[in-house]
Structure formats: C-alpha cells, structure tokens
C-alpha cells in the first residue's frame, strides 16, 4: 500500500499495490483480484533472490480517486488526527 515506506523501513520483500487503506487484497467481492494479489505476494515470498525485492501490482483501483479517497476513511477522525487538527486550529488562531 505504501511500498516506498516499506523500502525505507527495510522490508526484505515488498509487493506494491495502489489500493486504498483497508483493502490490501482489493475490492470486496472481487475474488479474482484477491487471488491475483495473494498469488503475487506468494511468488515474491518464495521466489525473491535478494533483500529489497519489490514488485508493483499493475492494477488501477476501479473507483474514481475522489470517491475512493473518501470511502477508506473512518466516519470519525482517529484520535491522533483529531489531536493534530486541534493543534493546527490553535496555532492558526494564535496571533503571531
């Protein structure tokens, strides 16, 4: 999902997918997509010959970006996001 971050954090084998958070194997009900992602991950697990092997999965998420971006997010912001937003709001309201 964030293969560049996995590379920076030194994951030994990586499969990159450009899917929204919470959907590592694809769309609900799309068995073929689940199968393709899992099969690729298994091939990378068993077949990679060196540290840092990364294979990106060439399938575009079949939902418009704006809708997909909204859909993966929780109804309520997470506690840390709420805290960050509150800190930002305070900083903006404080006269410099």
């Amino acid at each position, binding site marked *: 999902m964030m293969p560049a971050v996995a590379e920076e954090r030194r994951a030994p084998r990586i499969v990159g997918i450009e899917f929204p958070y919470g959907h590592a194997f694809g769309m609900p009900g799309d068995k073929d997509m689940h199968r393709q992602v899992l099969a690729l991950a298994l091939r990378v697990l068993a077949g990679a010959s060196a540290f840092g092997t990364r294979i990106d999965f060439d399938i575009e998420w079949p939902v418009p970006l704006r809708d997909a971006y909204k*859909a993966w997010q929780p109804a309520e912001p997470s506690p840390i996001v709420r805290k960050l937003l509150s800190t930002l709001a305070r900083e903006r309201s404080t006269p410099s």
Partner: protein
Amino acid sequence: MIVDSYRFLPRSFRPMYEGRGPLPGEDAPVWAQFEKRLAASRIALLTSAGIYVKASQASFDVEREQREPEWGDPSWRSIPSNVQAADLEVAHLHISHDDIRSDPEVALPMRTLDELVSEHMVGSATAEHLSVMGYQDRSLEDWRQKTAPQLVDWLRGQQADGIILAPA
C-alpha cells in the same frame, strides 16, 4: 508501472511518512532465502486491520487509544481459518470498517489461500491466521519486547514456513 505510495494519503500527512528512513538500529538488511518449494510449504497470513472474533475474543483496545491518541494496542489475535465472515469484527480507528465487514478477504484472504492450497500452488495453510491493529506506539517498544517474539513463537508452533504480512 511504479505504485504511487501516497495516492490515498491526505497530502498533509505525507511528510510524516516520506523520507523517514529506517528506524534506529534497523539499517542492516534482514534476509532469509525461502528454501522450500511453495507447493511443499505451509503459509500463514497476518493482517493489521484489527480483525477479531466477536464471540470469543476481546476487541483491540480502542478506548485507551481514544484517551491516549499516541498509543495503539500492541496485542494480537489468532483467527481460525474456518471462521464465518459474520463472526468477525474490526477494531481500528484509522480506517473505514465497512468493506472489511462485508468481505474480510479484502484484508485477510483465508478462503483465497485455501483455494490456492486446493490447487497445489501452496502446500498448506496454517489452521489459524494472525491479526494485529496497525496503529502502534511510535517507539514500537511493546512490539519489540513482546508482540513480535510471541508471534514468532506462535508461527513456529504452527510449523509455518512463511507468512504474508498485509498492512491495512
């Protein structure tokens, strides 16, 4: 094609992830060649979606995370591979639960793995798989000291040859 790692991330969050490098003390490569044939190997799955079995397991502790926003529950659950989707629940405050509830295979493809076993691409699957909650304390101390060693012991007990880690 090269996957855009930040396509679905709010733009203001990108600096929290990009260009951060390895964690302290984790610069050196960690590598083990996969020695066996996949068709003779036992495979386990791990999701960080915070999935648990409603009737028999406690939820991940999201109440404490509400009180302490920088803390995340470092515990783990083992999920029987034959559990029904309706018996699973999700506890993860950073993602929508809707699609995982409607089809847990999007995060933990236990049925899909069973199909690959029946087709002899994979030797076997562990009888249970693993679930953790992906939002963790930044220092990962609990993970280093407790969670990771417990998971490794559990995987050895299951005689797993390999594991697919699936971030949520």
